[in-house]
């Protein structure tokens, strides 16, 4: 590794030493749970590390809390998805309940899909769900939504593009 590559990491290290304790405390106050706070404090620095090298400015704590807030909200959302999913399979007949092995693969896939749906405009999302979840053909969707086939394709393209941009 060249010294140029190392520089941002050194910077991160000093940032970590100076602010990790503070960030952990801040998260703990927001979440009321020390181990979740430790998790997210850790993830915040990982997120920072993965960013292209940059200066952290004169207010590193503002940047840290900005990232941490996004992570907290994402975590809540993932928990919401998990809860909704568990409720959903709790109502299935026993024969249709996924095995423990596949159950978590499905949950992870659902969480990724949910994350993608957030980036889609309303009509594209609706079209996407009808196509990918309900299994309707583009023709059937056009009929159901009362739009042209071209519009369905345009919305599907937009939806796919949103998915690929998030991934």
């Amino acid at each position: 590794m060249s010294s140029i590559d190392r520089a941002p990491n050194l910077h991160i290290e000093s940032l970590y030493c100076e602010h990790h304790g503070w960030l952990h405390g801040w998260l703990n106050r927001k979440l009321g749970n020390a181990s979740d706070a430790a998790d997210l404090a850790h993830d915040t620095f990982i997120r920072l590390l993965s960013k292209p090298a940059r200066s952290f400015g004169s207010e590193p704590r503002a940047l840290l809390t900005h990232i941490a807030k996004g992570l907290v909200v994402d975590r809540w959302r993932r928990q919401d998805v998990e809860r909704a999913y568990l409720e959903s399979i709790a109502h299935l007949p026993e024969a249709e309940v996924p095995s423990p092995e596949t159950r978590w693969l499905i949950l992870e896939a659902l969480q990724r899909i949910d994350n993608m749906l957030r980036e889609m405009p309303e009509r594209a999302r609706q079209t996407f769900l009808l196509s990918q979840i309900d299994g309707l053909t583009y023709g059937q969707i056009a009929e159901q939504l009362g739009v042209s086939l071209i519009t369905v394709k345009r919305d599907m393209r937009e939806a796919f593009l949103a998915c690929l941009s998030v991934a």
Partner: protein
Amino acid sequence: MNPQIDPLILGEAADWLVQLQSGAATEADHRAVQLWRNRSPQHALAWQRAEALLGDLRAVPGSVANDTFQRLRHNTRVGRRQALHRLGVFLLAGPAVWVAARELPWQQWSADQRTAIGEQKHLTLPDGTQLLINTGSALNIAFSREERRIRLLEGEVLITTAKDPARSFIVETRHGTARALGTRFSVRVGEQSSQVAVTEGAVEMLPQQGGQGLILKAGEQGGFSRDSTAPVQPLDGAALTWEQGMLVARNMRLADLLNELGRYRPGVLRCHAGVAGLSVSGAFPLHDTDASLRLLQDTLPIRVSSLTRYWVAVEPR
């Protein structure tokens, strides 16, 4: 983090996805996609994403996905906007709109309660009774003028009842009922039987299909199946340490310990037969089962290997 891909290339990948799913895709289209993806590493990467996306969509049964997103729409505790608000962030204009526009505040009281794997939830009922619902549990609350009844469908609950001489307090499982006689106790429902531990007052266990009822007093624990009760035993202090977020083991088989830890983490936690019988003593944090596994790895001749966070195997070193 994921590498950046040229948005133009992503747009072309989206075009191909639409074409392949249009119902009008030909053999020539499939061949053309193969050529397209070989044009550059970025093209290949973009198509990898496309295939991962299709994989995710295939992995989820349509009915489950449908139902889950429906529930999310009605059941989300907070929208992103409210969540950020709660964190002290004010959005001027948010381009990222949450899936549902109309979300209910999660404080809204509901009779059906559920905890996710690894989650513990405190709940105060209208009569003042306190519930601490343990990991991976589901219960329904049915209060009437005559009685207070909790149906424990899955998992475990610790109950501190509020005094109400007029209405008895009953926990019902698939195996029968436990009736509280002014008390603090926990009920855990398993495959074959339900376990009851009493720290204050007393609880009467009644198997579903008649059989003899049995009263447990403070400092005792016992169990019941559909048609019988198990003999009373002195309360094992470790039985209720989950309330403090700890699992306390005294000469516990490793397989049993992992089984117990597994209740608090999503996914599969496998124990190799060669180490299942190892004897373990110690205190293990339940809120951070990764740390618990590291602790085990540091103190026992075992290796913890994980394919993903959801697939962990404990093997001989």
